[in-house]
């Protein structure tokens, strides 16, 4: 325990500066979003029709929307929703993506070809189109959106992991380990994982950014989640008509979406491929 704690600062400092900025930005947004319900009793759903489009004040630091709902509570709920969905879809895409990638790269032959064909099927269509069609099958449901995003994301892991595994499987150090009689668990832990981990973490950060963008884009065209939900894209559509009266309100979801995606991209630490 103490060892891991003392390790933290040095590992933290070893990250390149951009990644540290990204991590800090995301942590700040997440802290505000998750701590807010513990500190205040602001409710993202409670309307106050006598107090609509109010300017920011002490009681309502971000003002109120066109139905008098607290913007601060709604922004916090939207961040929790977007980051939560992004995290779950990235994790559930990474697991099968990495495992199948290792399997295909290791076994080669028919396994490789069959899995490659499945991946090509997914890649044949632009990702958002696939998410759009899947989300339309069950409108307003979280699982459809989540399934669509995860289905699009796993291919990235699969392709990168397969290529790395294939080149590693033929490498002399791995053959030496195999000749010494080490099992697949050891080979995976000792040889494959250290080579795969950096690429996987970068892919995860980009995947999270893409998931957040896809959720917002679908909300924006009213295909994704349905209105009472506080969601960034939906809020932009809802608040656009009030731009003249209250320009600061529509700028809030825009700024938050921008900061979330910027945080993920900086955290990824590399330009996307």
């Amino acid at each position, binding site marked *: 325990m103490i060892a891991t704690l003392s390790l933290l600062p040095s590992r933290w400092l070893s990250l390149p500066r951009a990644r540290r900025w990204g991590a800090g930005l995301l942590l700040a947004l997440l802290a505000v979003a998750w701590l807010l319900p513990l500190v205040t009793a602001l409710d993202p759903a409670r309307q106050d029709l006598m107090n609509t489009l109010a300017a920011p004040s002490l009681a309502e630091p971000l003002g109120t929307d066109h139905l008098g709902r607290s913007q601060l509570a709604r922004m916090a709920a939207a961040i929790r929703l977007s980051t939560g969905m992004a995290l779950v879809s990235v994790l559930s895409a990474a697991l099968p993506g990495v495992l199948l990638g290792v399997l295909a790269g290791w076994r080669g032959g028919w396994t490789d070809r069959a899995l490659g064909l499945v991946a090509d099927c997914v890649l044949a269509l632009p990702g958002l189109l696939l998410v759009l069609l899947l989300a339309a099958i069950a409108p307003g449901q979280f699982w459809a959106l989540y399934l669509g995003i995860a289905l699009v994301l796993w291919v990235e892991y699969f392709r990168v992991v397969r290529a790395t595994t294939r080149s590693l499987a033929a490498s002399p150090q791995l053959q030496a380990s195999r000749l010494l009689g080490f099992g697949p668990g050891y080979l995976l832990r000792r040889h494959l994982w250290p080579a795969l981990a950096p690429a996987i973490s970068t892919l995860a950060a980009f995947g999270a950014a893409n998931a957040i963008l896809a959720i917002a884009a679908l909300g924006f065209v009213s*295909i994704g989640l349905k209105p009472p939900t506080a969601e960034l894209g939906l809020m932009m559509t809802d608040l656009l008509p009030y731009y003249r009266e209250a320009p600061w309100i529509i700028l809030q979801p825009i700024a938050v979406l921008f900061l979330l995606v910027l945080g993920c991209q900086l955290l990824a630490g590399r330009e996307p491929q």
Partner: protein
Amino acid sequence: MSRLTSLLLGRLLQAGLVAWGVGTLTFLLTRALPGDMAYRIAAGRYGYENVDRDAAEAVSRELALGGSPLGDYLHWLGDLARLDLGHSLVSGEAVWSEVRHQLGHSLDLAIVAVLLALLIGPPLGMLAGLRRDGWLDRANLLGAVLLRSLPSFVIGLLLIMAFSVGLGWFPAAGHGGASHAWLPALALALGLAAVSTRVARNAMAGVAGSPFHAFALTKGLSPSRVFWRHGLRNAGVPVVAYLGVQLVYLIEGVVVVESLFAWPGIGHALVHALVARDVPMVQGTALAMGLLFVALNTLVDLTCLLIDPRRRQA
């Protein structure tokens, strides 16, 4: 030549996969519609007040609803294979004729967007790449990182706020004269340019650091002559190749940006059809977008072969 045929065969396979994928998903969409599909389609056609059992049964007979799932699925794919996309459930028009019009509008928008992106992104990136770590290079990196964190529809929103609501220079939405195309095309182009400018910068920096570039300068060619003669073509290949990767961004952007600007293209139509549960139109528009994606990718591949003779062998 064998390189060319294998490339075209691969893209043909991709087109087949697109058709199968879209067909299967839209079939699932018909199955997942809540309530009785016949009633819903009848409501879409005649209005909710005018739906009764006769109307629903007429719709059911006409569309052959209610067989076994597998039989329906094969029937559905068979129609698709014969390119029989049917008629829109809302307007009653043939899907093909509607899609043809919309595809034209989308292509207009996409072409203007790509041209704008090529005018903005690569020239700035190449200038930045020639002077590494100069002020232009830093500004270019900052601008690219910031722009890339904004999806195209948010760029569009900001453009509307600034240029049509604030300054009143361009119309906010709709389709008419050339002035209507500026903002949606710019919304798409800025996102594309943000990426292509960095690709061009990296490619140019690589070329500027290469021995043949140094040799061309040493033998006395002027810097501009070196750029046109030795730099541009070598740095151009990655930029064009990367356009293929960016096509995903373009097609995805078209869906949302067209909806934002009420541009009567294929993405706008797809979103409308999804909201109205107009399944034949969903299938037609999604198929058209998927095939457009494949066609543009093929075009990018062919352009790469044209620019870079090294790729034609092997």
